[in-house]
C-alpha cells in the first residue's frame, strides 16, 4: 500500500510574517518550517502504516520553491519513506485552484491508495485543499477527522462537523484530512534523523506532470491581490491590578460604559 502525505513549508507563525511586493507571501525574510498541522498528517500516515499487515510506503509530497525541500526533510526525519518535491518556476503565484491542479497531477502519477493532509496550512489557512483534491481525483473525501480506522480497503473516521459529530466511511482510494486532535506527532529521534539522509527525494517539474505552464501559477490565478496592508497593531489599554475588588469595579464600569450590558 502507498500513502501520500502532503507537507507544506510555511513561514514560522511565531515570527514576523508579511507579503512581498508582488502580493505573494514573503518566504525570504522569515524563518520557515514544516507547517505544524502537517505533522499530524505525517503521524497519522505512520500510525496506519504501523497498524497494517502490508508493506506500507509513506511518500511526503510538497510543491514550492527550493526551500520547500525542508518540509520533506522534516517529514522523512519523522518517518516518511521517501519524498517528491514538485518545483517549477511557473508554479509561483498559484491560487488554490492551480495548487490543487498540480498536486492532483502529482498524486495521480504516484498512484497511492490514500492521501493524507493536515486540516489547513498555518499560513494560508484556507483549509480547502483536501476537498479540492477529492473533487479533482474523483475519490471520496473524509475531512477533519480526529479518529481514523483502516480495515482492509475501508476507511472509517469520526469528524466533528459544524452541527454534528459524524462517523463516516468510504472505500480507498480516498483523501483524508486530520485535525490536531488526531494524535500527537512523534519527535524524530537521532536514528531517524540519520536515516532520513539516505532516503530518496525526487524532483518533478510541470513537464513530468504533463501540465502546461499557462494552466498554473500567477498567470492562471483567478484572483489578483490588489493590496496588502499590515493592520495597525492593537494597543494596550488600561491595566488595573486587582486589589479589594478594584479589578471587578473596573470591569463592570468598562462593560457599562461600552453598553455591553
Amino acid at each position, binding site marked *: 500500500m502507498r500513502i501520500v502525505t502532503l507537507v507544506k513549508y510555511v513561514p514560522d507563525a511565531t515570527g514576523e510574517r508579511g507579503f512581498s511586493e508582488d502580493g505573494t507571501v514573503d518566504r525570504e525574510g522569515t524563518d520557515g518550517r514544516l507547517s505544524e498541522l502537517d505533522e499530524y498528517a505525517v503521524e497519522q500516515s505512520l500510525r496506519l502504516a504501523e497498524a497494517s499487515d502490508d508493506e506500507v510506503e509513506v511518500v511526503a509530497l510538497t510543491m514550492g520553491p527550493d526551500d520547500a525541500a525542508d518540509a520533506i526533510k522534516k517529514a522523512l526525519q519523522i518517518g516518511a519513506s521517501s519524498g517528491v518535491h514538485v518545483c517549477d518556476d511557473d508554479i509561483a503565484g498559484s491560487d488554490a485552484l492551480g495548487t490543487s491542479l498540480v498536486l492532483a497531477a502529482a498524486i495521480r502519477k504516484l498512484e497511492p491508495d490514500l492521501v493524507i493532509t493536515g486540516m489547513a496550512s498555518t499560513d494560508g489557512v484556507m483549509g480547502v485543499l483536501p476537498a479540492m483534491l477529492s473533487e479533482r481525483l474523483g475519490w471520496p473525501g473524509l475531512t477533519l477527522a480526529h479518529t481514523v480506522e483502516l480495515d482492509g480497503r475501508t476507511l*472509517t473516521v469520526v469528524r466533528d462537523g459544524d452541527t454534528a459529530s459524524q462517523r463516516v466511511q468510504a472505500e480507498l482510494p480516498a483523501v483524508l484530512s486530520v485535525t490536531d486532535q488526531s494524535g500527537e506527532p512523534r519527535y524524530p529521534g537521532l536514528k531517524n534523523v540519520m536515516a532520513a539522509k539516505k532516503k530518496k527525494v525526487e524532483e518533478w517539474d510541470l513537464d513530468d506532470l504533463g501540465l502546461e505552464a499557462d494552466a498554473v501559477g500567477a498567470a492562471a490565478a483567478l484572483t489578483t491581490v490588489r493590496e496588502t496592508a499590515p493592520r495597525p497593531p492593537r494597543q494596550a489599554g488600561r491595566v488595573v491590578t486587582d486589589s479589594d475588588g478594584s479589578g471587578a469595579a473596573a470591569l463592570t464600569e468598562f462593560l457599562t460604559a461600552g453598553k455591553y450590558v
Partner: protein
Amino acid sequence: MGSVIVLAEAGEQGVSKPTLELLTLARRLGEPVVVVLGETTGEVVQTLGRHGATAVLTVAEPALQEGLPAPRAEALAQLAGDRQASVVLLTSTPDAKDVAGRLAVRLTAALVTDAIDVQPGEGGVVTRQSVFAGSWTVEAASTADVAVVTVKPNSVEAEEAPVEPAVETVQVTLSETSTAVRVLESSPKAATGRPELTEAAIVVSGGRGTGGDFAAVEAFADALGAAVGASRAAVDSGWYPHAYQIGQTGKTVSPQLYVAAGISGAIQHRAGMQTSRAVVAVNKDPEAPIFEMADLGVVGDLHTVLPAVTEQLRDARG
C-alpha cells in the same frame, strides 16, 4: 445584474444570523437567490424575503440532508449553472469551506475564504480578508466569471430589504462519485442555550488560569448573554470540548467584545480572536502577552474578579 447564490443555513430554529448577513452582501452584488438544501418552512421563506431574497430554491434530496460536502457541492454547481450565477456566497465554517473548495473546482471559479468584506468590482467581486492571525488585511479582485466566497460571521450588519421571494422546489442529479461517503452515525451537537460561538456579540473564553473550573467563566458569560470559548491549553487538558476552542486550529471569532480569562495570549490563540472589536483580559500574570492587546486588562484571579462582576451585573438588573 446577474444572480448571486446564497447557501442558507436554515432549519427548525429558523435562519441563521450569518445567512442574513450574506443576504445583505448579496444585495450589493446582484439578485440574491437563496438555496436551502433541505426542507423549508413558511417562516424561513418570510425571514429570507424580509432580508432581500428574490428567490428561494429548496432542494429536498435526502442525500443532502446528511450535510456531507460532496453532494452539496454538486447540487450547488448545478443550480449556479442553471441560474448563471456570478457569485456564490457561503458562511465560513469548516463544512462550508469543504463545499466551497469543491464548488470552485466544478465551476472553475475564483475562490476566496474567510472574507470580511465583498464589494462589486469591474472585472468581478473585490474581497477583503484578514490573514496571518489578523495582522494583515488583503484585498483581492476576482478575474473569473464566477466567484465562490466564504464570509466570516459578524463581517457585516444584516439589514432588512423586504421583497416577495419566488419559491421553487428544484431537482438535482447526484453522481455516484459525490455520494461515495457513507454516514454510519450522526450525533447532533448538544444545545448549550448560549449563542453560537462564531455569531455571538460577546465571547468569554477560559484558559489555563481556570484550573479546569469553568463555572466562573460560564456564569459571567450567562450574565452577559455571551458564548463560551476555551483556549487550546484548556481543551488539551480535557477541561472543555474541542468544539469551543478558539485559535488557529479551532474557531475564529470576531465579536464586539472578547473576554480572555486566564489565557496568556499565545499567537495561536490571538489568530482566533485578534479581529474582535474590543478585548478584555483577566489574568494573574502581569507579564501575560494578552495584556499588550487588551483594551482593559485586569491583573487578578479570574475566580475572584468574574464572580464579583457577575454579581454586580445581576444586582444592577435587579
